[in-house]
């Protein structure tokens, strides 16, 4: 139900950075720039420019764009523009996080995001990207020859973002995570909308697929369990959502699921019995963080991990 700052990306730890600090060790770490809760995007850009003036900044292997002001009032657009424009100064940048905010900073669905495509266009060396905050987020016309890992984290994903991903040209993408979220916070994606992805017709290099934090996880499970893409996946991540025994059974019944190396189902509503059966399945199965459904006015409610 809450989320922390992104801790690491592509093996690089993310370290808070403000003007006056030295550059984090470029072999092990990348800087996160977050302004004060009272500040605005101009202040963020000022701090970013201060980073760019550091000697050896060209060694920086990545950047995390954190709190850029009042994120529920101001969009990420000016910040995206500033980071894209700085590409000549950051020739070694391979990892990028947009919206690296914790629960302390902002509700994920209140983050005012914008089109992030310029970041991908500006950095051909990019291999790993995390985009957090689905409100206003687009990656329209995304093409990238080298991107290997993409994680899109929202509390409720709009179908246009899914559309952007399905239309994208990402020949080298191995890892895709989509935090689909809940309809309360803007998810208008039906399980059937994921069919082009599940068919394996797009993203030829994919080996790790996450369809996470989904409020219709039980309905999705049988579609995934019989999906053609499974034959090329080693990791399937269906964690953080509302999956219960109905979805679990669909997974159990699938020989293709049993052939995966890893299956992540953390944060779930399985019974103890179903948990045990899933653990015995074959792949390394994570069924930690068992949840209890709530009852409210006679209705049983299961909730995703990250919504608002």
């Amino acid at each position: 139900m809450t989320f922390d700052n992104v801790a690491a990306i592509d093996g690089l730890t993310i370290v808070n950075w403000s003007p006056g600090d030295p550059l984090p060790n470029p072999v092990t770490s990348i800087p996160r720039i977050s302004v004060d809760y009272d500040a605005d995007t101009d202040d963020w850009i000022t701090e970013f420019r201060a980073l760019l003036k550091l000697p050896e900044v060209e060694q920086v292997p990545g950047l995390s764009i954190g709190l850029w002001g009042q994120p529920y009032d101001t969009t990420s657009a000016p910040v995206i523009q500033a980071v894209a424009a700085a590409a000549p100064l950051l020739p070694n940048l391979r990892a990028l996080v947009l919206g690296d905010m914790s629960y302390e900073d902002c509700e994920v669905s209140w983050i005012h995001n914008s089109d992030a495509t310029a970041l991908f266009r500006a950095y051909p060396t990019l291999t790993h990207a995390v985009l957090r905050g689905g409100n206003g987020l687009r990656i329209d016309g995304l093409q990238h020859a080298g991107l290997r890992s993409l994680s899109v984290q929202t509390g409720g994903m709009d179908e246009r973002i899914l559309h952007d991903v399905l239309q994208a040209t990402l020949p080298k993408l191995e890892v895709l995570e989509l935090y689909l979220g809940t309809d309360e916070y803007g998810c208008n994606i039906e399980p059937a909308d994921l069919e082009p992805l599940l068919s394996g017709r797009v993203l030829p290099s994919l080996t790790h697929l996450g369809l996470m934090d989904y409020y219709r996880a039980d309905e999705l499970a049988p579609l995934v369990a019989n999906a053609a893409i499974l034959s090329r996946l080693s990791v399937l991540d269906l964690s953080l959502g509302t999956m219960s025994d109905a979805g679990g059974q669909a997974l159990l019944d699938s020989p293709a699921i049993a052939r995966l190396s890893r299956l992540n189902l953390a944060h779930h509503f399985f019974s103890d019995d179903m948990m045990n059966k899933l653990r015995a399945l074959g792949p390394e199965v994570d069924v930690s963080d068992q949840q209890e459904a709530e009852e409210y006015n006679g209705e049983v409610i299961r909730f995703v991990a990250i919504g608002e």
Partner: protein
Amino acid sequence: MPGPGQSGKGRRPGSGRPAPETVVVGGGGERAAAFAASCAELGWPVPTFCSWRDAFDAGLHARVADGPLLRIDSPSDDPANDAWLVELGGGSPPPTGALLPFDAWYAGLARVLTRIDEQSRHLRSRLQNPSELRMMFDKEFTAQTLHNAGVPVPESFSTTDAAGDTVDGTELLARARAAGWSQAIVKPRYGSSASGLVALRWHGDRIIARSTVEVTDAGCYNSRRLQTYRDGRAIRLLDALSRQPLRLERWIPKMSLDGATADFRVVVIGGRARHVLLRCAHGPFTNLHLGARRGNVATARAELGGRYVDVLGTAEDAVACFPDTWYAGVDVLVPRQGRARVVEVNAFGDFHTGVRWRGLDTYQCELRTFVAARGNRFDA
């Protein structure tokens, strides 16, 4: 020569003088057991416990006649004490699991502390001033005192007006909006921060409140789980809580340390920061009993660089506002930028197992430093 843990006056190696007797107001739970174990490890005499009830009934007089060290520990170590304090304070003890009427609890606490003060005022060997302990349980008073002394604290205001009347949930939110904030932590004015907290944020029409308080037809209850309240339900939660005097503190986003939202608990003893803990949470509250974990202080210290000294110094400055009290546990938050801020001064914030400072746990450090500061002499 008696060995450690044996009853009777223990001997500290090399001193030739017996270690002092200690009397503790408290007992009945884990804290008492831990304190006794710490004394035993030091080779000090077994401490004598005087329950809070006994202390209220003038039972302390006889026990302090020989001028022992006097230490006051939490009444909540004995679970039966909370209801008793509420009654003493003129309130009705609530059903099990319900939120305490904190103002009545505080009034009861104040009565007992006054009696303790009367019975111990003459001692030069008491570790705390009971009046100062009382003040620490009034968050309004504490915040004002710290602010006046130049100790950074979050911006805040109280919901009681000059007449002592409280405002309702809608008015509370209106005041916070008027102050230009977008998020706040709502806390009962009296009592410790163990319960009754709300993490509140708003944007336009949208309001979201998170709290372990559960509102039922029968009143407010403590839940183990964080509940989420939106819009109208959030206002109703605030209404239910505002029967008690409340404080609103600006919710300042904490810096991420050791990979999580974290703040520090600094145990200040004898004017210096000694034991430091990092409390990491996945959510707005870092109280350890709400599922937070202990983080790695060394990692956080490295991440903070020069700002770490500010954390310790700020905690020390806070406890210096209570000059007659030897120790307290201070909650310090580090915002992304700027000075560290004191969120709370905890009178009984020294119960932390497994943390050592120069080989001493919190209790041992309290005792040793107190005795050393007085040249190892006590004239009753």
